[in-house]
């Protein structure tokens, strides 16, 4: 082979010398009438027998097998080194665990010759299953296995149909690669997707040719659910770098840049909506006992969660900026929803804050059983009474007449502004609190003064009192309530005497 070949096939490999041998064998058996092609194996820091394997194939005289060593770890570095070393106008890529069909090189050359408008061509990657294939593994779960089959009809992928072709079966014109600048080393995964996005954005068309076939030997360890779960999580992580969810519009077109708009932790609202939708579908599938659907939606949830997490990590903001971002997001969200209701979004936000306060405070009090007037657990009369008796405090006035008699202080105008329940409750609370108990005499004095003051000013017609007594009283409840005014037993707790007549309102 003297001149430049027609096609350069680049394979980046790392410690897969066994499968690489099969890949190279498939390339050696290519039927390429009148075609020259070279195979560039880029050893990306392999520590196995990769160089020896390649050396074996270099003995072949029909095709040129080249060996290149790339120290920088990563498939993008490896492929870029291959591109750098390539001499053909067409650079084809395949992976070290795939085997191309015998006419693969010939067909990709033919496709690009017949379609000069295409910047690249890709094809199907069909699976070679190991002995057993799990039942849940249908076509929806092919992406993690790097299998691709868009059907029997060729089409162009472009900004209006940005379906990704996999680099395991992709050929790109060298001039195009030079123009757009190879694979991005920032993407240890999904670098093919990133490259194609640049291709599409530059206006290039990428041809999907279904007759261009490579076969992927599916490893048994890739047939486990845990592998798929981990793959989707990582995929979400790398797609977040591409902002893939945001650069495809609702019609499926590729945008030049993510649309401007409010974001919450780096992701726009519709990503969260997608997440909620997938969560719902996941739950529905679980409830309907559709394990394959459930697994598929579960993986989508994983993908979106990691997408959002990564976007949040990339979206580094200070706390003030973050707060502003959250408020803007919430306001924009409500603005959108408020239109049908004839209200500005800010009103929707403020009403929701009110609702949150109302529900939050009420729920807190209900759960904790605490009183925060005007919110309350409303626990009065909530215990189940079992004893037909009543114990409580009762305030009795001692009249000045001779002989003195005791009258219950129940009338509201006598104990204003208290009422018959409030005053004993207040006194009981003071009495039960050791710190306040010392104040109870002063409080009773106040009640006596108030009574006399109200009597003198004509607010009530009760008899003059010379003393006030606070009793602990006990009643055995009578079905007719006959003893309601006379306790069955009572114990004197405190007594004050000698009322002072003071002007009303003096404290």
């Amino acid at each position, binding site marked *: 082979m003297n001149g430049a070949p027609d096609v350069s096939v680049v394979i980046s490999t790392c410690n897969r010398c066994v499968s690489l041998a099969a890949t190279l064998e498939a390339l050696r058996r290519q039927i390429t009438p009148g075609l020259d092609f070279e195979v560039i194996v880029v050893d990306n820091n392999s520590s196995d027998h990769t160089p020896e394997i390649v050396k074996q194939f270099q003995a072949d005289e029909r095709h040129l097998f080249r060996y290149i060593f790339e120290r920088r770890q990563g498939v993008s570095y490896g492929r870029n080194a291959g591109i750098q070393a390539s001499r053909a106008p067409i650079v084809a890529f395949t992976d070290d665990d795939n085997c191309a069909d015998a006419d693969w090189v010939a067909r990709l050359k033919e496709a690009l010759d017949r379609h000069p408008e295409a910047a690249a061509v890709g094809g199907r990657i069909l699976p070679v299953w190991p002995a057993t294939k799990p039942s849940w593994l249908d076509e929806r779960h092919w992406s993690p296995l790097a299998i691709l089959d868009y059907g029997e009809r060729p089409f162009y992928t472009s900004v209006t149909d940005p379906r990704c072709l996999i680099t395991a079966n992709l050929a790109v014109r060298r001039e195009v690669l030079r123009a757009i600048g190879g694979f991005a080393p920032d993407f240890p995964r999904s670098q093919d997707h990133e490259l194609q996005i640049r291709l599409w954005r530059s206006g290039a068309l990428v041809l999907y040719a279904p007759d261009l076939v490579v076969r992927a030997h599916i490893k048994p360890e890739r047939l486990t659910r845990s592998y798929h779960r981990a793959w989707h999580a990582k995929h979400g992580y790398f797609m977040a770098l591409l902002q893939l969810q945001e650069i495809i519009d609702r019609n499926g077109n590729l945008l030049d840049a993510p649309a401007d708009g409010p974001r919450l932790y780096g992701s726009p609202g519709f990503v969260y*909506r997608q997440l909620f*939708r997938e969560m*719902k579908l996941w739950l529905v599938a679980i409830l309907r006992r559709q394990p394959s659907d459930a697994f598929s939606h579960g993986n989508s949830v994983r993908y979106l969660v990691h997408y959002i997490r990564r976007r949040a990590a990339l979206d580094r903001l200070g706390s003030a900026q973050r707060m502003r971002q959250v408020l803007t997001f919430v306001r924009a969200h409500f603005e959108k*929803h408020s239109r049908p*209701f*004839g*209200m500005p979004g800010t009103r*929707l936000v403020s*009403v929701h804050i*009110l*609702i949150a306060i*109302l529900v939050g405070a*009420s729920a807190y009090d*209900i759960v904790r*059983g605490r*009183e*925060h*007037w*005007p919110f*309350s*657990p*409303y626990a*009065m009369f*909530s*215990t*189940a*009474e*079992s004893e*037909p008796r*009543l114990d*409580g405090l009762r305030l009795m006035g001692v009249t000045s007449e001779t002989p003195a008699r005791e009258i*219950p202080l129940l009338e509201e105008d006598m104990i*204003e*502004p208290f*009422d*018959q*329940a*409030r005053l004993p*409750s*207040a*006194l009981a*609370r*003071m009495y039960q609190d050791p710190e*306040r108990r010392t*104040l*109870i005499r*002063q*409080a009773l*004095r*106040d009640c006596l003064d*108030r009574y006399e003051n109200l009597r003198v000013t004509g607010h009530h017609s009760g008899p003059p009192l010379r003393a006030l007594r606070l009793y602990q009283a006990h*009643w055995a*409840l009578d*079905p007719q*309530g006959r003893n*309601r005014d006379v306790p069955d037993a009572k114990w004197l707790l405190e007594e004050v005497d000698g009322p002072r007549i003071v002007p*009303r*309102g*003096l*404290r």
Partner: protein
Amino acid sequence: MISGLMRRWLWFWFEPTPPARLALSRALFYAGLLICYSWDDFSAWGGVSNEFWMPLPLFSALRLFPLQPSALDVLQAVWRIALALCSVGLFTRVSAIVAAVLGFYLLGLPHNFGQTFHVDALLVIAMTILAFSRAGDAYSIDALLARRARHHRPAASGEYTWPIRMIWLAMSLVFLAAGIAKLRWGGLAWITSDNMRIVLMRAVYHVSDADPWTDAGLRIAASPWLTHVLAGSTIMIELAFIASLFHPVARAVCVPAAFLLLVGIRALMGPRFAPFLVANVFWVPWDVLAGYALRLLAWKRRTVPSLLESPTSGTPLERGWPTASISTVPEDEHDASAEHRNDLDAPQKLVAKDFQLDISPLNRATHAPDFERH
């Protein structure tokens, strides 16, 4: 599902409605409060000795304390004026804010003296909600003035829905909390044990802020099964009340039931719930009732005028009454009013006014033949 729930949620709170219902509820609510609290003297709390001062958490946090009686006198006067202004709808927004702020202080003040009652808590919440609302956009002096200045009526909006819904929610939470507390602290024994019997008997021993209206509670207490039914119904109403938020049938059942429950508690056990009951005005579709009333009025005006008017007081049309209507007038008076119905202008005026037909020259040709045949 999420978007469906979201849509339902927003529709529940912000369904566009005309301002009438909120406005009429506002007028009645504030008028009700004014009546309920006309005789309450909050200034007396300013004279209670410091030994009784045991502030509520919110009063403590806001460092609120009882003012002197004279200052409280002024505050309660301002509050009552604000309530009155809110009711008639003059300076509604400012008045509502003043009513809410002073209402919080004045209604909360008595609860800082050792015993917290809950009868007015809902009112404070409702006043706060109304202070944020546009409740004065109709049936108010403000609305009249605005219409005169701007010549337009406010359109249906979610602004007139959410305050009502939020007060509904606040009330539902009150009942729900009460129901949950009974089951939590009392358990099923609250219903199945002698609990209700004991509670009814205790009520006559002056344990509540007021004595029961009647001793009927003692007679009910004598019947164990009746007390169980009463207790069960109480918890059922309290727990089911929250369904009133979502379904009109539940609303039609639970709201009157809860109203009767509170009246029953007042009658048999003593606690005064009158101010709390005022908040029920927000459950009543006043705009629908007003519509019925207006239709009834219009119907009566069509049928009754010939009864009321004297032959010399002018034709019904001069008084704005339609003439071609079914009459319930007695035979002898019917004849007397019949003369006035022979007015040639009457039928056209009736058609134009009552049935909103288009009688422009273009359309007249199509309507006229029919009209003449009739």
